[in-house]
């Protein structure tokens, strides 16, 4: 799967979880940049990403993620 395709799928998930159809993803995006990115929405986000890409993050993967770019890098390693 190409990086752009991963980004596009992720963007759709983010827009749905955070109910913001205009949300644009970039690698540096963090929880501080998105309204409503709290603990509950974070759990849902991770769960939706795992479902969409048919992957399962390790706990160590999750704890390394500091922004969307980190998330994309880890997804790539699992596809």
């Amino acid at each position, binding site marked *: 799967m190409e990086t752009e395709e991963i980004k596009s799928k992720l963007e759709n998930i983010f827009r749905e979880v955070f109910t913001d159809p205009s949300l644009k993803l970039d690698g540096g995006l963090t929880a501080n940049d998105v309204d409503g990115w*709290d*603990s*509950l929405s*974070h*759990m*849902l986000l991770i769960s939706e990403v795992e479902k969409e890409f048919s992957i399962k993050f390790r706990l160590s993967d*999750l*704890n390394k993620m500091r922004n969307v770019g980190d998330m994309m890098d880890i997804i790539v390693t699992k596809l």
Partner: protein
Amino acid sequence: MPEYTFREATENDVDYIVQAIIEAEKSGTDILSYSRIFDLPEQEIRDLFHQMLLEGIDGCEFSIASYIVAVQNEQIAGTIGAWVENKEHPSSLVKANLLGYYLPRNSLLHASAYSTVLSELNIDHVKGALSFVTVYISPEHRGHHLFEQLADMHIRRNPGIRELSIQLMSNNYYAIKSYERYGFEKCLELKSSNELILTLLPFNEKILMNKRLK
């Protein structure tokens, strides 16, 4: 006065810490928010907490390293969980990673229905502050100033810290009085008028208290 000693918690203390988290969450009621929000029986929640604490992830209430315990006659008498809130990466996400890793997807989907109402009482931890989250003293050891001594020890192991913060439900009157005696002041109060909140949380009002250190 009984003799107490104070030390950092270890994996051997995990059962007491789980009990402390549960009692602190219930805030003197029978409502365990995790059980209600994720639609799981209390015993399953206890088992989850046990597993999460043993993961050894630092920086949230499910981190053994966050806890200091008071001990008397080799029995734990009380504990406080506290950490310095990271300025870049919120502890709420560290906790969410642990919960999300262990909770079944159905529980997460169940919880998603409550996202909006729960956000009405959401208070972020204060960045850079020593954040006290789980405070629990066993009933038979109350009245011996263990809160103050445990808090003092947390401060000593975090030299340079300039602010303490704590958030709790407003119905926890005795705890609020105890924190005020220690120098905490209320700095934020949130109230939800949504009736659903009282089916999920022990109370519909939450406060943030802080104390500046010299």
